[in-house]
């Protein structure tokens, strides 16, 4: 299996930071706040590898740093230290040494993100179709008819009725907004997708259909995905490998069935046994 993303010792500290930050935080100290300088260590020393066509889960409770990690990879936030290499089409992009224009270019055309909150991933002031058109335009698709046809096809594929493509997504239900977000993320055929708690807060039946949709699209397109979730069911159904985070650290990584059935770390045992 070939790697598509290599993350090495990624660290994000909010606050002034001091030499003690990494030593006095983490699961062993049961905190991510540095007692020397008061900084919050959101992510510390996180390394992982994602392979082509693989779905990797990132599990942990709120505040464990899982969202912070993927947001840095999608350039929503800048790391304090560490690096990440995106192997795309024979090219290796070292993500955090690229200039801003290069980063935006990758983000707009070669990566996709689906946020828990659709307001972050969609422009609520333009139509559902317009949201997809916007991303296609950024990827240099300039023909109006081609854009319209692609947007229609994408929305149909994510089960958004084409009749509603000219409506504003703010008028859609949560589940439908999520579908538009997924359609938008997929529109440029990006090989790398980040999903950040995409089913959290949705009705159970809607959650199930969104998961089915994601799985089907993954199988058809072979897109690689990092799936952030605190939901064990999502991890079980969607991913083959899982990493577990706590207080900004990766504390355990393994095959998903192994993580769920034979967790090694104390925290993971607790997490898995807390499932209802």
């Amino acid at each position, binding site marked *: *299996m070939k790697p598509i993303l290599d993350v090495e010792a990624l660290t994000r500290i909010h606050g002034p930071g001091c030499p003690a930050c990494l030593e006095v935080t983490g699961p062993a100290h049961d905190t991510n706040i540095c007692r020397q300088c008061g900084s919050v260590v959101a992510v510390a020393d996180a390394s992982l590898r994602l*392979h082509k066509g693989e779905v990797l889960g990132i599990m942990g409770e709120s505040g464990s740093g899982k969202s912070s990690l993927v947001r840095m990879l999608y350039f929503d936030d800048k790391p304090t230290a560490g690096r990440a290499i995106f192997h795309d089409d024979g090219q290796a992009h070292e993500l955090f040494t690229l200039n801003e224009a290069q980063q935006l270019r990758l983000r707009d055309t070669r990566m996709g993100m689906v946020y828990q909150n659709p307001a972050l991933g969609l422009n609520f002031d333009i139509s559902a179709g317009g949201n997809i058109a916007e991303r296609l335009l950024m990827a240099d698709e300039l023909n109006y008819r081609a854009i319209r046809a692609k947007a229609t096809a994408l929305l149909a594929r994510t089960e958004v009725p084409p009749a509603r493509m000219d409506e504003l997504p703010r008028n859609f239900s949560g589940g439908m907004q999520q579908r538009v977000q997924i359609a938008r993320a997929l529109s440029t055929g990006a090989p790398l997708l980040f999903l950040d708690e995409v089913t959290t807060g949705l009705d159970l039946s809607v959650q199930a259909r969104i998961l089915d949709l994601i*799985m089907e699209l993954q*199988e058809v397109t072979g897109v690689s995905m990092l799936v952030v979730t605190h939901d064990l069911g999502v991890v079980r159904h969607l991913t083959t490998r899982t990493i577990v985070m706590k207080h900004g650290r990766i504390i355990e990584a393994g*095959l998903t069935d*192994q993580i769920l*059935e034979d967790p*090694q770390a104390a925290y993971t045992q607790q997490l898995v*046994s807390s499932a209802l």
Partner: protein
Amino acid sequence: MTDILSVRDLAKGFYIHDRAKHVPAAEGVSFDLKPGQLAALVGPSGAGKSSLLKAIYRTYVPSSGQVLYRSATGGIVDLATAPETAITALRRAEIGFVTQFLHCLPRLSTLDVVARPLLQQGVARAAAHEKAARMLAALAIPEQLWDATPATFSGGERQRVNIARSFTQGGRLMLLDEPTASLDPVSRENVCAMIEAAKAEGVAMVGIFHDLALVDRLADVKIEVRRKAFEDAA
């Protein structure tokens, strides 16, 4: 013929952090298996048979020992320590597991559940469905049920879907955890015939059967499993 699987002194125990307690499940298990052979793990309930099977499949992390598997390419892989990506690839193409209970995606039709591993291997939809249909028919699942989800099935039907799925996927090594436990005599006979056919094709198997007559009929190797350390501790 060379061995396809050599299990060397395999042990599995659990450390439960919550209670600061080590629970041994099985230890000191060694055996060799050639293509077309079936090894039966025998021993009382709670002796650690399922744990061993899961340790071979790496759902459980082995505590010590080796699980040497000769892959289709001829190389030897220690399943106990191989990288996760190697395990995933082997599970997809070579090593199957028939679990005690059917775990499948909710909402999928029975035909899709059974065909899914083939689709994931890249087999075309029509061909995958055809093979899945053949297996379901061989296990006497009525055709009217094929487009329903197995979630609505009886225990015995679910178990047969489970077996159909694993045998549709095929592979070179199959792990069977009580595949006949909840089956009526006719279905059990169908499953035995399927196991014998797979053996004849050279598939190696490690299995747990609560019915000792089945062990005598199907097994080439019998491995006694005892929870030794636990008894010693008690």
